[in-house]
């Protein structure tokens, strides 16, 4: 009967080549055993219904699992994914910091910022997809290579659980924790800052609306002066990146972190003061342009001291917050 052959074929095509003939022959004789003499098509259907879905039958014969990642590896897979995804995202953001300052960043400040944020997000997403794919693939292969009969779940070091594993669990209260988003935001912020700083002559300045489009009239800063501080600024950026990585790995505020954080605040406030104290920082054309709008000269020193005061207040507040969180138990 044709139905029987189709059924057997449906089962055996899902099986390894070497078992096919033997299982097909056995199924054939079993089905014939179950059928009465002079059977009808209806009899065949009844018998095949008893044997059930060919997919289920075939999976019974096969040793390989019918799932991608089973209970044995699922938990360790998920926790590895949670651990690796943020790290990969951070690495892709760091790559962005290193990459963007010398690239074409668009025509206006907004364009440049949006472009960098866009690049950052698409970088995170594509890295995330890569990590997800390779990790899933590795676990799916591991699942299929594992021939041990033991089905109990494994822990992060791929060994069965013991009470010793409890010691590895970090006990972090919400108030002390460094949110992942804070690390991402500071990395993204650093890359935006780097791009703006090293392309200030093209991006930061006076824009005027003419004929419905923004025209860049004159840059605010003297790029040569900005560039002369490249070593200082690079130091600030690199230390900022390192601090963000350190935060990511700690995951919570400690006194040591608060201390490094304080040093960093001090460093970049000093850098800020040094740079804005340079008398040639602002572009003469920009100053001239401002003079046409209001008398900048009489405000100059109060703006200067105001900026210094604000930056010191922010740095002090940030430092205080770091120590406050570190002290929470």
């Amino acid at each position, binding site marked *: 009967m044709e139905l029987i052959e189709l059924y057997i074929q449906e089962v055996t095509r899902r099986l390894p080549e070497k078992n096919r003939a033997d299982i097909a022959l056995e199924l054939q004789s*079993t089905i014939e055993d179950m059928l009465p003499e002079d059977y009808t098509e209806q009899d065949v259907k009844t018998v095949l219904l008893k044997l*059930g879905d060919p997919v289920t039958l075939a999976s*019974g*014969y096969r040793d390989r699992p019918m799932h991608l990642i089973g209970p044995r590896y699922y938990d360790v897979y998920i926790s590895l994914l949670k651990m690796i995804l943020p790290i990969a995202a951070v690495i892709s953001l760091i790559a962005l910091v290193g990459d963007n300052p010398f690239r074409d960043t668009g025509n206006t400040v907004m364009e440049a910022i949006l472009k960098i944020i866009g690049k950052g997000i698409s970088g995170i997403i594509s890295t995330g997809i890569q990590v997800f794919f390779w990790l899933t693939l590795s676990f799916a292969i591991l699942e299929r290579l594992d021939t041990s009969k033991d089905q109990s779940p494994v822990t992060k070091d791929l060994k069965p659980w013991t009470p010793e594993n409890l010691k590895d669990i970090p006990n972090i209260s919400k108030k002390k924790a460094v949110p992942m988003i804070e690390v991402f935001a500071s990395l993204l912020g650093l890359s935006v800052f780097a791009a703006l700083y090293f392309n200030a002559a093209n991006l930061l300045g006076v824009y005027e609306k003419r004929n419905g489009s923004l025209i860049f009239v004159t840059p605010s800063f003297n790029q040569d002066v900005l560039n002369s501080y490249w070593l200082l600024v690079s130091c600030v950026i690199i230390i900022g990146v390192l601090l963000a990585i350190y935060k990511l790995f700690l995951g919570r505020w400690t006194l040591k972190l608060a201390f490094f954080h304080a040093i960093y605040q001090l460093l970049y406030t000093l850098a800020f003061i040094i740079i804005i104290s340079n008398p040639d920082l602002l572009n003469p054309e920009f100053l001239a342009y401002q003079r046409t709008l209001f008398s900048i000269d009489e405000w100059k020193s109060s703006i200067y001291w105001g900026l210094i005061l604000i930056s010191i207040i922010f740095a002090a507040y940030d430092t205080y917050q770091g120590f406050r969180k570190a002290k929470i138990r």
Partner: protein
Amino acid sequence: MSTLLNSLTTELRRGTLTLAVLSQLKTPQYGYSLVQRLEKSGITIDQSTLYPLLRRLEKQELVTSSWDTSESRPRKYYSLSDYGGEIFTQLKEEWEKTSQELYILLKGEGEDGAD
């Protein structure tokens, strides 16, 4: 409700299937004859479970198989190996112990309910 009961019953019986199958293989049996013998004792076994189970037992060297081609249609006969016999004896003892313990446990539960 009844589907839950069904799945619990299936789960309860699953572990005993190996024991039931091994017990019938002291004399060589082919697939369908085994089904009939089991059904005669009131044990219904999903056929899509039984045939793969026989293969697995063979792979675990608990049973041996041979094709008999002398009759009208070829049949694959399975029978207990020496190793399979040993395992079967131990498994049987394990089962008897378990069922005894469970019997006492369930009886005790019945008496508690009567109080």
